[in-house]
């Protein structure tokens, strides 16, 4: 007796399981393929008869890593970017006004790195009065995107806010309390050993080099020990000065209806001793924690998962990474110069 087997169709129907991946994943991976963000090699390993959600996610991950990964590789700061792809179609936060699903790229910072840099900026200031102050300002202008900068001048702002009723020192608070010995943190103690130009950003009597003149000074001092740091700071200032490209800071309100800002410093910059600003930082974070919740990210761009959406957002995502890389390089140069000067002239 002959056993007859059923004949298989020449094209076995594809098995496609996309349960944990939603419409956004599919739209995004399609657009990425159309733009060439997915390499032929990535697709070569896929089987036409079987496709899973995890395979789609791997394609997306590889494509984005290739496109922007190198912009977000840092040696010192703790910032990072993440692609947000909500699974549910009804996520209001990631839906446009005309009900189109959106995806997002957001930046955040993890636990900050603590560094000491005082000698480096004192060396700059010694070369030209006012230059060190301007150089520190370049760091503040980037770090302010992550909340109050954890730099000497940022510490001063924290003190004004949490201790001194907005004033530059404790005098008004002591006068209000009518007690010379009142338990108010004193400026001389908190900033002991830190030159005023380094922490008092608003003192008009102190010299300051105009940012536009910084490039000329960097060129003049290129062969000096501070040359590498000045070059890194100039690059940081130039790239950070491009307006409207860095990912948007969220505009949110806390439970009291007050503006809610991020408070995620990617680095803490101290002057001559590790832990010298600990009291200010602790009190600042306690105060901020009591104000309510923080925004979910430091910066974010949301876009439609199609070719136009990616083309519009990619330059902003890359620019943001490049600003943060320039910050990372400048901070490394500052830390290394400080360590070098401390070792040669203890």
């Amino acid at each position, binding site marked *: 007796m002959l056993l007859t087997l059923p004949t298989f169709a020449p094209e076995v129907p*594809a098995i496609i399981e996309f349960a944990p991946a939603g419409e956004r994943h*599919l739209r995004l*991976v*399609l657009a990425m*393929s159309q733009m060439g963000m997915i390499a032929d090699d990535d*697709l070569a390993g*896929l*089987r036409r008869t079987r496709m899973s959600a995890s395979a789609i996610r791997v394609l997306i991950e590889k494509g984005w890593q290739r496109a922007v990964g190198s912009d977000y590789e840092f040696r010192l700061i703790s910032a990072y970017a993440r692609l947000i792809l909500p699974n549910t179609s009804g996520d209001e936060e990631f839906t446009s006004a005309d009900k189109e699903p959106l995806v997002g790229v957001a930046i955040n910072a993890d636990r900050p790195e603590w560094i000491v840099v005082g000698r480096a900026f004192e060396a700059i200031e010694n070369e030209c009065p006012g230059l060190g102050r301007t150089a520190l300002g370049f760091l503040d202008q980037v770090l302010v995107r992550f909340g109050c900068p954890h730099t000497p001048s940022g510490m001063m702002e924290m003190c004004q806010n949490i201790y001194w009723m907005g004033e530059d020192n404790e005098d008004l608070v002591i006068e209000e309390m009518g007690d010379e010995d009142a338990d108010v943190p004193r400026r001389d103690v908190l900033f002991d050993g830190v030159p005023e130009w380094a922490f008092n950003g608003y003192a008009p009597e102190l010299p300051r080099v105009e940012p536009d003149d910084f490039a000329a000074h960097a060129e003049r001092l290129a062969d000096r020990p501070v040359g590498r740091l000045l070059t890194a700071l100039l690059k940081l200032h130039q790239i950070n000065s491009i307006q409207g490209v860095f990912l948007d800071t969220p505009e949110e309100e806390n439970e009291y209806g007050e503006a809610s800002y991020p408070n995620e410093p990617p680095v803490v910059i101290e002057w001559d001793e590790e832990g010298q600003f600990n009291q200010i930082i602790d009190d600042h974070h306690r105060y901020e924690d009591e104000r309510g919740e923080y925004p979910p990210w430091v910066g974010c761009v949301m876009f439609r998962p199609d070719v136009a959406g990616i083309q519009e957002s990619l330059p902003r995502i890359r620019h943001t990474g490049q600003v943060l890389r320039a910050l990372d390089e400048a901070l490394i140069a500052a830390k290394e110069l400080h360590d070098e000067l401390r070792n040669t002239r203890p």
Partner: protein
Amino acid sequence: MKRDAFEVMIEAVLSDMVKGQTKPSAKRSRGIGGLRYGPAERDVAGVVRELAQAHNRAKVIVAPSPEFVPPCF
């Protein structure tokens, strides 16, 4: 897999997904099990509901058993 084939496949899945979202839901013209409900069935259902609610309202107050009553009583 070739790029063209991959894109065609994803487009097809997306197209099915969109169709699935916009497909109008069929109206049920007949009751469960093919029954048609009329005024008589509604009256019966009303009586059953009333009985069920009356049962909930007329709760019996349970007297405590003697061994749970404190000695002062």
